[in-house]
């Protein structure tokens, strides 16, 4: 089944579970994902949405919106998470494992590492003070060879 969905939510931490739930439900409707794959999708979505809340909007309540877009084809799920916050100055550095600008808040610096490992494609687009867009693609039934 081909399909798409667009979800707009405020950048509040309780929406982390809401966003991953909606994406998981959308994915299940569109494809025959395994429980393990669904859990990977949920985890990757959680990372991107959490980053928007913490980093893009700096945990301010009453701040910006997050847009979650899902797109499905018979063999793939594409999820894009967009914020309109501070942006990422150095994307290459941000994607490095363990790199975090908020170590004092017990961030592990593993968000991008998880997104990369749990999904099959990851594209980060960002401009300072404009926002960040995280595009992730997962292929159905692709046995991961490592």
């Amino acid at each position, binding site marked *: 089944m081909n399909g798409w969905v667009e979800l707009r939510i405020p950048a509040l931490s309780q929406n982390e*579970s809401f966003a991953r739930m909606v994406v998981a439900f959308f994915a299940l409707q569109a494809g025959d994902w395994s429980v393990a794959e669904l859990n990977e999708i949920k985890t990757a979505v959680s990372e991107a949405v959490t980053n928007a809340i913490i980093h893009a909007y700096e945990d301010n309540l009453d701040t910006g919106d997050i847009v979650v877009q899902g797109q499905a084809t018979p063999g793939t799920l594409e999820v894009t998470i967009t914020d309109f916050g501070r942006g990422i100055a150095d994307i290459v550095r941000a994607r490095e494992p363990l790199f975090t600008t908020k170590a004092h808040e017990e961030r592990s610096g593993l968000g991008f590492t998880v997104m990369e490992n*749990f999904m099959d494609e990851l594209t980060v687009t960002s401009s300072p003070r404009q926002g960040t867009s995280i595009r992730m693609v997962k292929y159905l039934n692709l046995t991961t060879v490592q």
Partner: protein
Amino acid sequence: MGFSTRYRGNILVVSLSGELDHHTADELRQTVEKELDKDIARHILLDLSQLVFMDSSGVGVLLGRYRRILAQGGKMAAYSLHPHLEHLYEVAALSKVIPAFASENLAVNELKKDEGLRR
């Protein structure tokens, strides 16, 4: 997410359930910190059998507790890892710092291993 705490000797056992993410991390952090402040626990043991979701924010809060318990000379372990957490455990290399065992007793044995030497 839910959790309960109990003591098994000098081990603080924390049973987690539900979903551990940035939103629920704070609650866990505060609960464990309050217990550690009581100075009863030398080690921390996590029961992860009912924790069906965790992301890197969860990893952050677990590592935070690990650092404190390590600083006071203790260790941290987990048991009955829910299948949903396996990939994260691997990607975050968590086994190195919070090894996961098949049962509570196996984990306890590991935590107590070096203690006998000092008795």
